[in-house]
C-alpha cells in the first residue's frame, strides 16, 4: 500500500480562543438512528458549542447527514427513520413531546448540499421564514430583516437591485448564499450545513468558507464535508464518522495531524474513501 503522508493542516484560526471552555449549545447522548432495519447511527454522543465550527467528516454513507438531521429533527420527514437517545438544545430535550418541532427548526437552521432556493423571488425566499413565523408584522420590518440577512450572508451588494428576480436565476454560489441568508433570516441559534459547497466551483466555495468564518461565534455552526482540506480550513472541531460510529471527535488540528484512531488516520491519508 502507498504511504501517503498526512496533509499538513493549516487551521486558519484568527482568534486563539479555542482552548477556552466553550459554551455548550447542543448535546447528543447515545443517539441511535435506524432506517427500518438499517442501523445508520450507533451510540453517538457529541457536544456542539457556540465558539467553534464543528465539522463532520467520514466516508460516504457513514451517517454524517443522518446525524446532522437528527439535530433539527429533519429526520421526522422520513417515515421509516427512528431516533433514540437524548439530544438537547440549551438543555431542553428536543425529542420531548413538549418540544414544538416547528419552533425547533426555526432555532436550528439548515443549509443543504444542493442549493435549494424556492422558485420565488429573492426577497420572498428570505422573507419566507420570518413570514411564517410572524416575525415581521409590518412591511418595513420585513424589508429590514431581508436586507440584514442578505448582508450577513454577503449577498446584499450583488442582489440589492434585483430582489424581485427569481431565486433560481442566481448562480450556484449565490443560490447557496441565498439559502444561508434564508436560514439566518429567522435568527436561528444553530446552523447546520450538509456539504454546502459540494455543488460549487472553487471560487464560490471560497466565498462560502469566508462566510462561515464571519458567522462563527454568532451561531453554533455544524458543517458536513467530504473535502478534508475544507474541514481543516473552516472548522475548529472535527468529528470523524465511520459506519455509523463516531470514531473520533476533537480539535481539528489534533485530528488532522495526530489522529488517535487507526481508522481516522487511514481515512485522512486516503487509504480508503
Amino acid at each position, binding site marked *: 500500500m502507498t504511504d501517503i503522508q498526512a496533509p499538513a493542516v493549516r487551521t486558519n484560526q484568527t482568534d486563539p480562543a479555542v482552548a477556552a471552555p466553550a459554551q455548550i449549545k447542543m448535546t447528543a447522548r447515545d443517539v441511535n438512528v435506524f432506517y427500518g432495519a438499517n442501523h445508520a447511527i450507533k451510540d453517538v454522543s457529541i457536544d456542539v458549542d457556540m465558539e467553534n465550527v464543528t465539522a463532520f467528516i467520514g466516508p460516504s454513507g457513514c451517517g454524517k447527514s443522518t446525524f446532522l438531521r437528527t439535530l433539527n429533527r429533519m429526520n421526522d420527514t422520513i417515515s421509516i427513520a427512528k431516533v433514540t437517545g437524548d439530544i438537547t438544545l440549551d438543555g431542553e430535550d428536543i425529542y420531548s413531546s413538549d418540544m*414544538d418541532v*416547528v*419552533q425547533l427548526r426555526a432555532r436550528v437552521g439548515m443549509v443543504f448540499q444542493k442549493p435549494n432556493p424556492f422558485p420565488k423571488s429573492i426577497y420572498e425566499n428570505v422573507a419566507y421564514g420570518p413570514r*411564517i*413565523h*410572524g416575525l415581521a408584522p409590518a412591511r418595513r420590518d420585513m424589508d429590514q430583516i431581508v436586507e440584514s440577512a442578505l448582508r450577513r450572508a454577503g449577498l446584499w451588494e450583488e442582489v440589492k437591485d434585483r430582489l424581485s428576480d427569481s431565486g433560481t436565476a442566481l448562480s450556484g454560489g449565490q443560490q447557496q448564499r441565498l439559502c444561508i441568508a434564508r436560514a439566518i433570516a429567522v435568527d436561528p441559534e444553530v446552523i447546520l450545513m450538509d456539504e454546502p459547497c459540494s455543488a460549487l466551483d472553487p471560487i464560490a466555495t471560497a466565498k462560502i468558507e469566508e462566510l462561515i468564518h464571519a458567522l462563527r461565534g454568532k451561531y453554533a455552526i455544524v458543517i458536513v464535508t467530504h473535502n478534508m482540506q475544507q474541514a481543516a480550513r473552516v472548522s475548529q472541531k472535527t468529528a470523524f464518522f465511520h459506519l455509523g460510529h463516531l470514531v473520533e471527535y476533537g480539535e481539528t488540528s489534533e485530528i488532522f495531524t495526530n489522529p488517535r484512531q487507526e481508522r481516522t488516520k487511514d481515512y485522512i491519508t486516503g487509504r480508503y474513501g
Partner: protein
Amino acid sequence: MQKRIRRRYAAERRFKFMGLAAVVLSAGFLAFLLVTMLSNGLAGFSRTEVALPIDFPAAKLDVTAKQLQNRGADLALAGAGLDEVVDKAATAAFGEQGIDIISDRAWTEVREALKSDPTLLSRKARIDVPVSQDVQNALDGGGKPAMRAIVSGMQAKGLFSNKFDFGFLTSADSTDPTNVGIWGALKGSLFTMLVTLLIAFPIGVLSAVYLEEYAPRNRWTDLIEVSINNLAAVPSIIFGLLGLAVFLSFLNLPRSASLVGGLTLALMIMPVIVIASRNAIKAVPPSIRDAALGVGASKVQVIFHHVLPLALPGILTGTIIGMARALGETAPLLMIGMRAFIAQPPEGLTDPATVLPVQIFLWSDQVSRGFVERTSAAIIVLLVFLLAMNALAIYLRNRFETRW
C-alpha cells in the same frame, strides 16, 4: 407567539382534514355507486320459476324419444307445437290467466328439459319454468292489481321458487327480460377485444421500441411523438367517427361487426400502449444496455434480450389498462352500428355483434321494467371484469415497481 403557533397548527389540522375529506368522499362515491349497482343487480342474477305440471302422454306430442336426441330436436318440437302444449298446460294448472303467468318462452325451458330427459315424454312431470314479467312485477309489489291477487294466492301455495338464473350467463339478448342473457354481448366483447389486442399490442409495442431505441431526434419523430400523445387524449367518440368514415364508408367493412369495433378500439388504445411501453422501456436502466453493448451485443439483441423482457411488466400493465378502457367503451361503438338487437351470439368476427357496455346502454332503454335489474346485473358482470383487469394491472405495477 404561542397563540400564533396554535393558530398555525389549527390551520394545519383544517388542511389535513380537507384532504382526508376529499379522499373519503371520493371513495364514498365509489362505494355508493357499487352498492347501488349491487343492490339493484343481484336480483338480476336470479329468476322466479313456477312449477308447471304437464301431462305429456295426454298432450300427444308428435315426436319420438329418438328424435329428441338428434340434432333436429328443436325443429321437431317446434313443429309438434310444443308451445301450445305448454300454454294449455298453464291454463289447465293456473286457470284462465295461466298463459300470462308463465313466460312467453317458458316452452323453450320445457324443450330443454325434454331434450335432456326424453323419458319425460311418457309421463306426467312438473317442470320449473320462468314466470312472466307481469308476475315478477306483482311479486315485487307492483304491477297490475288483478295479477297481484292471483300471485298472492299462488304464493301462499308455495308454487314459486327463486333460482340462480344460469340462462343469464349463457344466452343472448331477448325481448323478454326473464329470458335475456349476457353471453351474446360478452362473446361480442371477447371478439372485439381479441381484434383490439391483436392489432394494438404488437403495433403499440413495436412503435414504442422504435421511438425509444431507434428514432433520431428530429422534426419527424417529434411529429410522431406529438401525434401519439394527442391521440391518447382524443375523445373516444372521434374514433367512432373515424371508424364510420374509414372502415364502414370507405373500406366497406360490415356494419355492427366486432371486427370493425375491434379495429376502432385498437386505434383508440394504441397510444395508451405506446406511451406505457415507452415509459417501461425508458425505465430500463441505461447501464443494462451499456452492459450488453459492452460484451458485443447488437442493438436488436440488446432490445430483444434485455430491454423488452425487463420492460414487459410495465408494457403489460399499460396494455391491460388500455384493454380495460376498450372493454368499457361505448360511444365509438354506437357510431358503427354495434347497438342492434342481436339475439344470437356472434359466430365470427364479421357477424353482427354487440358488446357488454352497449348492451347495458340498450337495456337501460327497455320498456319492460324487468330490465332494470338485468341492466344492473350486466353492469355487475362488466365491473367484475374491469375491476379484475385493473387489479391485475395494479398488482403487476406494485410487484415490479422496485426492480432497480
